[in-house]
């Protein structure tokens, strides 16, 4: 994905001069509520309605704004997939997860045994039992639902996951689990992740690059390490300062050696 430029409407809801997400990279969009994060994310898939979207949005080699509606529907799901904020609400309540999965696969031309295989593989990749495909949304937990949404993306072969505050409705313990899955997929499969969040602490632990937005405009962007270490914009500084700190564990427990090897912001 290259050269993502978004300008919207007469009232500018989101204006992002430049935003690239490379394979295996996690880019985080941060900023206060209403700053245009979701809008930016959705315009990537041409899903912003009732607004005037200008600029150039490329998903792979497809220009979202000039592509035909059919072509656009083609890339949705198969190239870039969405993971939304509230896990259960994002799933159709009257449909077994497997039904949704197979319909989505069929939509992109995968059917029959092939589809079953892809579905189970996707589900396993997010550490779920394929049995979950037989359940309805209200029978799964928030974390499971969120992981299933990621599994959908994997099964469809999406190279980029667009995650809109995927964990803000979850408890911290569950959040950790979803984030771990995302990280692992990024590392192991080279999945690109565009993550929207307002939790700077969370972002700091996962994102490679950070884009800070305010009132529809980008105020700062750069590598995560840089932005957190030396925020240049006053607003970014305020954001960082507002993160409540836990009292440090004294003494800090030694890190287990077999986990989280070789990663970090």
């Amino acid at each position, binding site marked *: 994905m290259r050269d993502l430029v978004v300008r919207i409407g007469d009232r500018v809801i989101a204006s992002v001069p430049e935003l690239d997400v490379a394979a295996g990279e996690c880019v985080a969009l941060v900023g206060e509520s209403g700053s245009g994060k979701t809008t930016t994310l959705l315009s990537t898939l041409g899903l912003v309605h009732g607004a005037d979207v200008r600029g150039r949005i490329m998903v792979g080699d497809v220009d979202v704004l000039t592509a035909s509606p059919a072509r656009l*529907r083609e890339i949705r799901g198969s190239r870039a997939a969405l993971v939304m904020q509230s896990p259960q609400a994002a799933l159709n309540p*009257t449909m077994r997860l497997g039904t949704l999965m197979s319909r989505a696969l069929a939509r*992109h031309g995968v059917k029959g045994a092939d589809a079953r295989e892809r579905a189970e593989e996707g589900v396993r990749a997010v550490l779920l039992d394929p049995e979950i495909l037989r359940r309805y949304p209200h029978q799964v937990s928030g974390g499971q639902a969120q992981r299933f949404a990621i599994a959908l993306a994997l099964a469809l072969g999406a190279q980029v996951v667009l995650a809109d505050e995927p964990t803000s409705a979850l408890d911290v313990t569950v959040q950790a689990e979803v984030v771990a899955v995302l990280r692992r997929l990024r590392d192991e499969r080279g999945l690109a992740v565009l993550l929207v969040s307002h939790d700077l602490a969370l972002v700091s632990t996962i994102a490679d690059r950070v884009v800070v937005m305010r009132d529809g405009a980008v105020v700062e962007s750069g590598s995560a390490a840089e932005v957190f270490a030396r925020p240049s914009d006053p607003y970014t500084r305020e954001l960082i300062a507002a993160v409540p700190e836990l009292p440090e564990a004294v003494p800090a427990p030694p890190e287990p050696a077999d986990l989280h090897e070789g990663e970090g912001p």
Partner: protein
Amino acid sequence: MPRYLIRRLGQAVLVVAGVIVLTFAIMRLVPGDPAVAYAGPKATAAELAQARQRFGLDDPLPVQLWNYVRDLLGGDWGTSLHTRQPVRDDLLQAFPASLELVGAALIIALVVGIPLGIAAARYKGRLPDLSVRLSSMLAVSVPVFWLALALQTVFASGLGWLPVAGEYDASLDRTSPLHLFTNITAVDALITGNWPILTSTLAHLVLPALVIAAYPAGVVAQMTRAALIDESARDHARLERALGFGETAVLTRFALRPALNPVLSLIALVFAYSIVNGFLVEAVFNWPGLGRYAADSIRSLDTPAIAGVTLLVAVLYVVANLAVDLLQGVVDPRVRAR
């Protein structure tokens, strides 16, 4: 599910009990002495007293109520004053025809209303939407008795496309008599393969069913539209779009099922409403249903018959509600979990 079911059943029984009490109360308010009506105008004082005793009219009200309930449960719904038949038999006779009419109307309403609702939701805010909204509002605003006259005059007597009135061409009774099983003419004709009567019945059904369908079709279209718009604005619809499904597919393949739930819960209400609308329409089309029976009993202040119809329709409503609740469980797995 079973516990939920039991609770619903309990509620339904409670409501039916209330309905019986209320019906009883209304009946006791009706002017005129049932004993006089029964004993006849020339009854002597002794005969009157006997009639009073027979009807238990001298008992205290709670006892009368108890007797009434006991009779009802025992299948004795009283004797109609104007047909002089047991009310229960009258109702059994008239109800299938009403069911046939209202059933046909509801089928029309669903077949017309749901696609219109979908179309309106699909083109929300555009011309198709506006026209569906306006026409559905017209449909729920039209006085049925007037619509019945208008359609009959235009399509039956004016253009001659459809039969004027009646349940089927009566001369068919002689050329191809109908074996009755369910007492619903169309159904019986279908299962016995009586094609002349079936086609005749269907032709006769069209106009009255259309008239009765106007209201439910309007309601269903409005409700489908509203529920679909609601549903398609939900998060899950956004996900479905993001999976590459087009707007129409999102509406019909995904949003429709959860959206059907509110539509379904309307059906019970609309069903009862339509039966009552039959009171206004059946006479015009000479349809031998509950509506005509009710209208006749009302005009003749036939208390047992009025009570019978009232009870029957109210109980039907409760049962329909129950059925709809069960159906909702089929449509929406969340309900099953309750």
